[in-house]
């Protein structure tokens, strides 16, 4: 991991609540899918903490990276207003990446809303390795659908109101499909979605990797603030260090 600077190339609205930030990094960081960066969004101390975002894309040749974010608080509201050429302080790459599938069965990539970021980067990484996959994206309605960033991966779309694609949740959708028993599931999104994907995988004895979202203070493993409850004697592990990607069977689901 390094602390370096990044210049905003573009800060684009991609759906009703989603934005994509493209960054030119001052130094090479070479993140893998599932890893994240933290951005110091303000130097006025409000908001105080750096904000973590999963990489949604990375190009090694140009050393450019992308993240996808949702405006939902002071930090992201400020970030939304930053235009091209704005200089940001970043720390990257952080956390553990997704592990590639061990099974030969077609992996299933599942993203809900803002959980799209790490799943998109996993999709492009698998594509670059010529590993096939099925991408499923869920959101509330068609206005929240970031079509442009999804289209290269021919995704299945699910909306809660049925305004586009499958009418129902991503898990409802997966239950209607003949998923291979051995398909590894990769997911990122709201907690209930992650839990449902875990249960779906558990029923099939398939492997399921979840990328969790937690409030973080340091982002590097020092503060013990972002922990996730896990099975076993340790009880809590750090989302920023041992995660944010976990094998779903290790998490103590509640």
């Amino acid at each position, binding site marked *: *991991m*390094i*602390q370096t600077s990044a210049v905003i190339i573009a800060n684009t609205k991609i759906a009703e609540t989603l934005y994509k930030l493209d960054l030119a990094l001052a130094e090479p960081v070479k993140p893998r899918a599932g890893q994240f960066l933290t951005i*110091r969004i303000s130097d006025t*101390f*409000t*908001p*105080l*903490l*750096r904000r973590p975002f999963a990489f949604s894309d990375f190009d090694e040749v140009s050393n450019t990276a992308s993240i996808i974010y949702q405006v939902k608080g002071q930090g992201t509201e400020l970030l939304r207003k930053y235009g091209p050429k704005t200089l940001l*302080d970043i*720390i990257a790459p952080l956390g553990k990446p997704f592990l590639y599938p061990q099974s030969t069965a077609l992996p299933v990539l599942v993203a809900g809303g803002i959980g799209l970021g790490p799943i998109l980067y996993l999709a492009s990484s698998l594509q670059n390795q010529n590993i096939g996959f099925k991408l499923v994206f869920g959101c509330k309605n068609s206005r929240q659908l970031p079509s442009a960033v999804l289209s290269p991966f021919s995704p299945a779309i699910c909306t809660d109101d049925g305004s586009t694609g499958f009418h129902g949740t991503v898990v409802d959708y997966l239950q209607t499909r003949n998923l291979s028993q051995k398909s590894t599931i990769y997911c990122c999104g709201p907690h209930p979605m992650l839990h449902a994907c875990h249960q779906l995988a558990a029923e099939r004895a398939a492997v399921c990797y979840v990328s969790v979202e937690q*409030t*973080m*203070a*340091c*982002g*590097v*493993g*020092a*503060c*013990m*603030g*972002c*922990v996730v*409850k896990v099975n076993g004697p*340790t*009880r*809590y592990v750090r989302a920023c*260090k041992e995660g944010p990607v976990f094998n779903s069977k290790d998490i103590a689901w509640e």
Partner: protein
Amino acid sequence: MGIIDLSVSIGSARLPNPVGVASGTFGYGGEYEELIDCSGLGALFTKAVTIEPRPGNALPRLVETPAGLINSIGLANVGIDRFLDEKLPDLSRFGCPVIPNVAGSTEEEYCSVLERLETNQVPAAYEINVSCPNVKHGGLAFGTDPHQIEHLTQKLRNLTKKPLIIKLTPNVTDITVIAKAAQNGGADALSCINTCVGMVIDVRKKRPVLSMKTGGLSGPAIRPIGVAMVYKVCRAVTIPVFGMGGIMSSDDALQYLLAGASAVQIGTGTFIDPALPITVINGIEQFCIQENIASVNLIRTLLND
């Protein structure tokens, strides 16, 4: 450059410069080693260590506030056995003074941890955590009672010749009473201040955000409180004081040094900018050059009050 004496004495320990990283904010050192040259630190105060491993408090443990952060970690730590076997050997390679932060629920637990630490050469001093607001027993209970502080400090004093630094809580009516009690008990130095008790309520859910309801507020929001407490404590005791609370720049650190502190610790500020401790060391040196003073120990003589 290089002509300024940045070193400070804390009891028998000599720190190469007056800027340490605060306990609980720097893990066991390794977490930050890719981002900061730890050999340049004045001191590395470790995550608190207790006799048994502690998992820490339930979630959520963090909530951000205006210019601040409230935490309720609950002294999550690996326990003294793993601390001695794994963490201290690893900490020794950083080349800066390592100061374990000692915590417990009873006097006996504090003593047991200290006795175990005494078997190891690595610690340059000990910081005694009698001020954690996030545990049910010990911690703050010791830190708010001058008799208990004096008694505990005396007991620990009998166990070690290494410097004892008592970390004080701001959550008292008069911090100078506690400071004097620690000095009377034989403390070599004080750390002022630990976090201020704070609370955030989620109005929509009509319940506290943190699982433990309250937590410890840190960050720039508490800096003026810290500076005022250090100013008072430095006029009540003769032992050196570490000033801390909300340092985000070298000027912030200089406020503490001008108030009377011998050294400072940086905590939450490192989360926001891992380079901050080194930036602050350089800033303090620059200040000495500008003020034409040969030693950081003279900064506290410069206050016009």
